[in-house]
């Protein structure tokens, strides 16, 4: 038997500011405070079902929804770019539900939600960067059971991770982890920096901005307070290294930014362009030229 919808459920149903109800925001905010107090430790939280699929940024969205206010200026990036489809979708969501000003400019933003990159322009004190995290547990690939990895964190038993990295060196002559490269926060907790390329890892260290990490499906929140020591795991004889390209960006000529590779034909031709679209735009606005060789 089907009844009609009550009026409150029909079109125009008013969701609360920033979508989440106040009780949920309080729950998330309390978890954020604990996360900040125990840097790098993953705080379990009662992640809600969001109107976006799990795996598409629900953790970051819940964090942003609990943080955001009308005076914020929001930037959303995916793969470093403001105009990828999911970044557009998330930005629209907050523009609509939180009546917030949005920007593509890193420097103008107060709140940045990101997937897979840290902007090239150094973040400043007072900014907050929210990372979308698919698998928050850095030990997951060594030990799939949460019950076990939780115990390893409690004992600060990270020997297994060093062994894994060392096996890489023995086998390949180098550490074969290119992104989601594990870090040690303030000398205590091993942490997944989310799947950012290891190129971005040095930016995590002593960043003046507050870094928050949200994993919706895995129901975890963690944080790195400003100015906190974040070390990428390494060995004395195998120091941590980042990616570097021989090429420069074809649009702005940048030689110090993370580059995306674009295949241009079926004969092995390719270009490299800045992954960070704001960085690239700013450089070009400033007169930089990559000597664009495109047809």
């Amino acid at each position, binding site marked *: *038997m*089907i*009844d*009609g*919808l009550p009026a409150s*459920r029909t079109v125009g149903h008013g969701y609360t500011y920033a*979508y989440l*109800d106040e009780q949920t925001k309080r729950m998330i905010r309390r978890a954020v405070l604990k996360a900040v107090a125990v840097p790098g430790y993953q705080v*379990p939280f*009662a992640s*809600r*079902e*969001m109107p976006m*699929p*799990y*795996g*598409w940024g629900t953790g970051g969205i819940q964090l942003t929804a609990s943080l955001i206010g009308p005076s914020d200026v929001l930037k959303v990036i*995916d*793969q470093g*770019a403001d*105009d*990828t*489809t*999911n970044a*557009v*979708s998330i930005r*629209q969501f907050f523009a609509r539900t939180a009546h917030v000003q949005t920007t593509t400019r890193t420097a103008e933003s107060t709140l940045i939600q990101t*997937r*897979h*990159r840290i902007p090239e322009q150094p973040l400043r004190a007072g900014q907050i960067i929210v990372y979308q995290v*698919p698998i928050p547990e850095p030990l997951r690939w060594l030990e799939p*059971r*949460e*019950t076990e990895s939780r115990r390893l964190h409690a004992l600060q038993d990270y020997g297994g991770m060093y062994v894994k990295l060392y096996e890489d060196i023995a086998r*390949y*002559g*180098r550490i074969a982890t*290119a*992104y989601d490269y594990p870090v040690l926060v303030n000398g205590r907790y091993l942490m997944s920096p989310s*799947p950012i*390329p290891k190129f971005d890892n*040095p930016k995590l260290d002593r960043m003046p901005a507050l870094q928050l990490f949200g994993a919706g*499906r895995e129901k975890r929140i963690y944080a790195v307070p400003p100015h906190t020591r974040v070390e990428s795991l390494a060995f004395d004889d195998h*120091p*941590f*290294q*980042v*990616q*570097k*390209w*021989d*090429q420069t960006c074809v*649009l702005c000529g940048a030689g110090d930014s*993370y*580059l*995306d*590779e*674009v295949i241009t034909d079926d004969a092995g031709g*390719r270009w490299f362009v800045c*992954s960070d679209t704001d960085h690239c735009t700013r450089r070009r606005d400033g007169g930089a030229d990559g000597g664009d060789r495109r047809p």
Partner: protein
Amino acid sequence: MYVAVKGGERAIGNAHRLYAEARRGDPAVPELTLEQIGQQLSHAVDRVMTEGGLYDPFLAALAIKQARGDLVEAIFLLRAYRTTLPRFGAARPLETDAMAVSRRISATFKDLPGGQMLGPTADYSHRLLDFALAETGLPPEPVPPVAGVSESSCPRVTGLLAATGLVEAPPPDSDEADTTDLTRTPLALPAGRALRLQALARGDEGFLLALGYSTQRGFGTTHPFAAEIRMGSVEIELEAEELGFPVVIGEIAVTECQMINQFQGTADQPPQFTSGYGLAFGEAERKAMAMALVDRALRWRELSGGDDARTPAAPAEDEEFVLAHADAVEASGFVQHLKLPHYVDFQAELELLRRLRADAGAVGCADGRAAGAEAPESVP
């Protein structure tokens, strides 16, 4: 200017319009009504309500229509709506003993108080396509009511056996203790049985079916009997604080399954039958039965004397594995997130792979050109 996925907003808008167009199909064909979905695709509605965790046939039908019949997507739509609803309180445990049954079968006793009642089932139909259904026509002949069946008292089989001690006594009614809401509290492991059952009730039917099946094939040590499956409507009672007594706030249709398994006993417990429990909204026997099998399988530790040192012997007995992967909405989201751009990570892997190939001196590795030198990190 070159950007790979430029024009996001317009592209997204157009994608939604294309999807809506595909949903409607040929406008010459009459549009589905929610009443039609609710009345004629009721198994789909029941599944969406069960896994959506919200008993609302109207909204479930709407979700099914909106999702073009993709039930996992419909479950997701219903969940995302459910999450915004306020909580008024926890109902008292359902009195399924007092169910107005429309179907009730036991595989363990030929006859029993209340009798066997086949009810609406396709169990014994021959699975031949009924081409008559391809034509719209007259409704089927109504079934004349059978006197005295549904009116008689219908105690649950496990209750009848419990009196003899042959089946474990059901856990005592707990109004307060176990009303932790899985959707409002993060799951901590090991989870209690009440929390596990919540997760299984919301769990994907296909996943539970496969797990339940695996226990029957020997991946697990259960030898189940379907003590009872009953379907019908039960009242929901809420204890209103101001009144001090429970009031009926509505009635819902459910399917309940109790599986019983032989159990050798432990030092503390005599040999007896132990049970697994399944409950689903509406008519959902497959789900309820699979859930009961998995529930029983997950009780292995408790029924082996709580030995923490032992590890689960089968996938269906592995609480963390089952609970972490049972949810179709979580699974669907994460599997499908692979559609999102990953070119930053891919580029990182590409760069690494080229370097490893160059290290290995791979022959014909023209690709090696693109790899730059890896520079030591410059620490400011």
